[in-house]
C-alpha cells in the first residue's frame, strides 16, 4: 500500500485556462505561440465509433476514426499557479471539445479577421450562450485593418460590455495586452455578479 503524503499534495499547482477561439486562419495558434513559454504543443483526441462525443455524424460516416487536434501553450504564473492557453479546434463539428475547453475557463479571446467577419460568429454565439466572459480581438494582418473598433462592434452586433481590441497576434506585447484585457474583464464580471 502506498500512502500519499500531504507534502506531496502541496506541490501540485492549480491550473487555469484561457480559450483562444475564432474562425479558421485567424491566428489562434500564432497568438498561443507568441505568449507561451514553450513552443505550442499539440495533443490529439481520437474519436472512434464508440466515441459518443460526436453529436453530428455528418461527414464522418464510413470512417472508423477521426482526430481532433488541439494546440496549446503554457505560462507558469508562479509555483502554485499555471495558465494554459488552448486554441479551439478549427472544425465546428467538434463542439463537445469546446465544452471541455470552456468548462472552468477564465474566459475566451475571440480572434477576428475583418476580411472574414462571419467566420467568428459561431465562436461569439458559443460564449454568449454559455455566459462565458470573452473579448473580441481584431487581428490586424499586414495592413488588413479595414474597419474601426466601433464598426467591428456594430458588424458583430456586440453588447457594449464586450471589450473589442485591435491586436497583432504575432507580437508578444500585443497578445499579452489582449490576455490582460480578458482577465480584467472576467474580474469585472465577477464583481458585478456579487
Amino acid at each position: 500500500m502506498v500512502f500519499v503524503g500531504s507534502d506531496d499534495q502541496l506541490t501540485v499547482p492549480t491550473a487555469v485556462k484561457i480559450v483562444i477561439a475564432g474562425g479558421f486562419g485567424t491566428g489562434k495558434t500564432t497568438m498561443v505561440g507568441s505568449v507561451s513559454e514553450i513552443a505550442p504543443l499539440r495533443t490529439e483526441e481520437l474519436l472512434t465509433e464508440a466515441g459518443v462525443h460526436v453529436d453530428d455524424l455528418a461527414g464522418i460516416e464510413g470512417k472508423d476514426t477521426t482526430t481532433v487536434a488541439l494546440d496549446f501553450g503554457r505560462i507558469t504564473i508562479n509555483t502554485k499557479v499555471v495558465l494554459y492557453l488552448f486554441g479551439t479546434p478549427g472544425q465546428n463539428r467538434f463542439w463537445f471539445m469546446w465544452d471541455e475547453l470552456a468548462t472552468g475557463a477564465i474566459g475566451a479571446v475571440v480572434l477576428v479577421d475583418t476580411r472574414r467577419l462571419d467566420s467568428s460568429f459561431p465562436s461569439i454565439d458559443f460564449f454568449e450562450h454559455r455566459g462565458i466572459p470573452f473579448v473580441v480581438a481584431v487581428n490586424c494582418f499586414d495592413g488588413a485593418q479595414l474597419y474601426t473598433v466601433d464598426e467591428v462592434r456594430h458588424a458583430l452586433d456586440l453588447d457594449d460590455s464586450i471589450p473589442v481590441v485591435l491586436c497583432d497576434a504575432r507580437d508578444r506585447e500585443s497578445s499579452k495586452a489582449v490576455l490582460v484585457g480578458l482577465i480584467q474583464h472576467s474580474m469585472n464580471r465577477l464583481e458585478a455578479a456579487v
Partner: protein
Amino acid sequence: MTAREDWWYDEAAGPLVRPYAMVRGRTRPNAPDLHLVTQVRASSFASDQTSLTVEHREIMALCARPLSVAEVAAYLDVPLVVVKVLLSDLIERGDVIVQNSPPQIPDRDLLQAVLDGVRGI
C-alpha cells in the same frame, strides 16, 4: 497492487490500433476526473517500477515535475484517451498524485494572481 497483465500489440495493425493495444483496449479511464489541465505529478513515494510498462515509466519520468494531462499526452505523442487510461493505472497504484478538484471558475484572488503573472512575463 495490480498484477502485471500481459499486453500485446500487432505491428502489422498500424498506428491506429497500437495506442489502444497500449491500454489493452480500454477506453474508459478508472479515474473519471482527468481533464485537459488536471495537474499530475509522480509521487515521491512511488512503488517498484519494474512491473510497469515502458509507457507507464515514460509518464513517471515526465511527471517528475507537475504537468497537465494534455502536456503528458503531447510529450508522449499518444491520444488523450490513452494517456488518461495510463495515468489512471498509475494513480491507482499511488505512483502518480493528482489535483483532484474539477475545473472551477477562478475566484478573485486567483484571477489577480494570473493577471499579475501575465503582466510580468
